C-alpha cells in the first residue's frame, strides 16, 4: 500500500466521439488502489460511454486511459481485460442460454491456474450463497436479483484489479439495492478497487470514497463522497432535495 497515492486507473483529458458526435469532453478521473469511486449523472450523460472507453470498446479521440502507470487506451478489449479490469455491464447481460456455472467460467476465461479459479469460485459462493444452489440452471431463467448476483460473480471471476459496475441498482427492489451495495462494499474491503456508475446518488455516495458528476459528457463536480453529500448543487440536482 505504499503506492497508495498513485492512481491505479486514470482517465486523462479523455474525449470520445460516436462518429461525429462529441460524447465525452475532457474527462479526468483518478481512482486510487483500494478505493470505491462513483460516477454519477442523469440519463444519456455519458456514464456507460466512460466505462466503454476504459475497456477499449470505444476508442477515445483524445487523451489517455492509464492503468497502473501503463497507457491502455488503444489496446483492444481482450488485452485490457487481461491487464486486470472487468465489468458488470448495464442490464447484467448474462449468457442466457448457458448455465450459471458456465457464465462464471466465462468470467475466468483469460485465467489459467485452476487453483486460483477454484478459490475465486468459492469467494463468489461466499458472497452469494444463492448462486451456489443454481449452478446448473440456465442463466436466462434466473430472477432479476439472481441475475445481478451472477453478473457480479462473473466479473469477480476474472480476479480484477479494478471492478467496473454499470448501474448495479437498476431494476432492483429497494431491499435488493441495499443488499447489492453492501456486497459492493464487501468486495471493496476484500481489496478490489471499485468504479461504480450510478443514478442512485445517495446510495453510491454512501459507500464511495470519491465521486464524480457527469453532465452531457463533462465532469461538472469532483470531490470526496462526504463533501458531495453536503454540496448544495449536488443535493438539489441529484439527491432529491428541493
Amino acid at each position, binding site marked *: 500500500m505504499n503506492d497508495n497515492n498513485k492512481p491505479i486507473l486514470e482517465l486523462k483529458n479523455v474525449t470520445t466521439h460516436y462518429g461525429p458526435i462529441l460524447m465525452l469532453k475532457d474527462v479526468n478521473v483518478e481512482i486510487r488502489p483500494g478505493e470505491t469511486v462513483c460516477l454519477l449523472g442523469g440519463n444519456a450523460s455519458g456514464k456507460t460511454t466512460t466505462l466503454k472507453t476504459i475497456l477499449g*470498446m470505444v476508442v477515445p479521440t483524445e487523451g489517455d486511459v492509464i492503468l497502473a502507470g501503463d497507457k491502455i487506451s488503444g489496446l483492444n478489449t481482450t488485452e485490457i481485460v487481461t491487464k486486470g479490469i472487468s465489468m458488470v455491464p448495464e442490464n447484467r447481460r448474462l*449468457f442466457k442460454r448457458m448455465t450459471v456455472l458456465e457464465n462464471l467460467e466465462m468470467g475466468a476465461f483469460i485465467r489459467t491456474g485452476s487453483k486460483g479459479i477454484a478459490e475465486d469460485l468459492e469467494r463468489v459462493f461466499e458472497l452469494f450463497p444463492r448462486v451456489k444452489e443454481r449452478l446448473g440452471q440456465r442463466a436466462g431463467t434466473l430472477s432479476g436479483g439472481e441475475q445481478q448476483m451472477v453478473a457480479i460473480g462473473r466479473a469477480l471471476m476474472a480476479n480484477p484489479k479494478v471492478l467496473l459496475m454499470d448501474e448495479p441498482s437498476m431494476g432492483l427492489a429497494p431491499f435488493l439495492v441495499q443488499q447489492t451495495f453492501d456486497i459492493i462494499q464487501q468486495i471493496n474491503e476484500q481489496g478490489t478497487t471499485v468504479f461504480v456508475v450510478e443514478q442512485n446518488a445517495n446510495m453510491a455516495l454512501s459507500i464511495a470514497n470519491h465521486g464524480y458528476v457527469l453532465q452531457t459528457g463533462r465532469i461538472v463536480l469532483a470531490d470526496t463522497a462526504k463533501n458531495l453529500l453536503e454540496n448544495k448543487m449536488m443535493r438539489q440536482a441529484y439527491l432529491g432535495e428541493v
Partner: protein
Amino acid sequence: MKNTLRQRIGEQFSLITLLLWALRVGVFIVVLWGSINTLASGRYEASTWINLVIAGLAQGSIYALIALGYSLVYGILRFINFAHGEVFMAGAFTSVFVAEALERSGFFPKYPILTFAILLIVSMTSSTVVAVLLERIAYRPLRNAPRLVPLITAIGASFFLQYTFRGLYGSGFHTYPEFGQLWGVWNIAGMDIQIVQVFVFLASLLMMAGLYLIVERTKTGKAMRAVSEDKEIAALMGIDVNRVIVITFVIGGMLAGSAGVIRGMYQPQGIWFFMGFHPGLKAFTAAVLGGIGNIPGAMLGGLFLGVFETVGPTLILQGLGIPAANQLKDAIAIIMLVLVLIFRPQGILGEKLAEEKA
C-alpha cells in the same frame, strides 16, 4: 371504437388460425390417405420399409454433417454461408485424386483403412482451408455491413469456388474407388442390411458426437456459445471473438470434409466441381428444418430430411397414385421444409428468434 378495432383484429387473427388449422388437417389427411393406400396395397413387406429407413438415415447423416456447417456459422454470425456446399465439394473433389492415385499404385487394395484415414485427412484439410479463406477474404471485411451484403457475397463466392475448382481439376467426372469390404450385406433376422449404409451412419454419428463434446464441454466450445449469444460481452470476458469465428469455420470445414469422403464411399460416382450445389441446398434445408443455429437441430434435421425423402415418395406419393414417385424426392424435401415452417417457423428444435433479437 377501441373495442370494435380489437374485435376486428381478433376476428382476423382467428381467421388466419383457422386457415392454418385447415391446412394442417388437410396435409395430415393427405399424408395419412397416401400412406394407408400404399400399406393396404400390400406391395411392400416390412423389410422394404426398414431398408428404406436405413438408406434414409445414411443419406440423412451426410446432409447432417454439411448442415452443421450452416448452423454453426449462422449461430455465430447470423448469416447463411451459401458457399458451404462448395466447402464440401472442395474436400471430396481434392481427395478423389488422391484416392485414384492410391488405387493405381496398389496402395489402396493393400491398406484400405490407412487409405480411408489419408483420404479423410486430405479432404478435411482441403475443406477447412477453403472455409477459412472464405471467412478471411470474403466475409470478415463485411462483418459490419448490412446483412444482405455478405449473403450476396456468399452466393458469388459459391460460383467463384465452383469455377476455380473446375479450372484446377477440370470439368470431368471422377469416381471414388470402391471400398469392397463395405459393399456386402448383413443378413439380420431375414433382412439384408447394406453394410455401407450402417457404416456411413455410424461414421457420421461419431463425428457429430465429437462435435457435441467440443461444444458442450471444452473451453473453446463454451467460448463459441458465448460469442453466439453476445459478441460484445464475450469480448468483455477476454474471448478473442475473431479467433472463435475462425474456429467455427474450421469445425464446419472439417465436418464438410468428412462428409466429402463419406459421400465418396457411399456414392462413388459423380465427383466433380458442381457436386456441392445439390447436397448444399439439401443440407441448408435440413438446417432450417431442425432450427437454424441449433446444433442438435441440424443433426436431427439432416436425418429427418434423409429419411423423409427416401421413404416419403414410396409411402405417401405412390398411395396417392402419383407415377414415378421416386423422382419427386427433391420436391418432397422442399414441401417438407415449407410444411415444417408453417407448423413451426423456428424449426424443429429452434428457439423463438423473436425474443432473442429483441
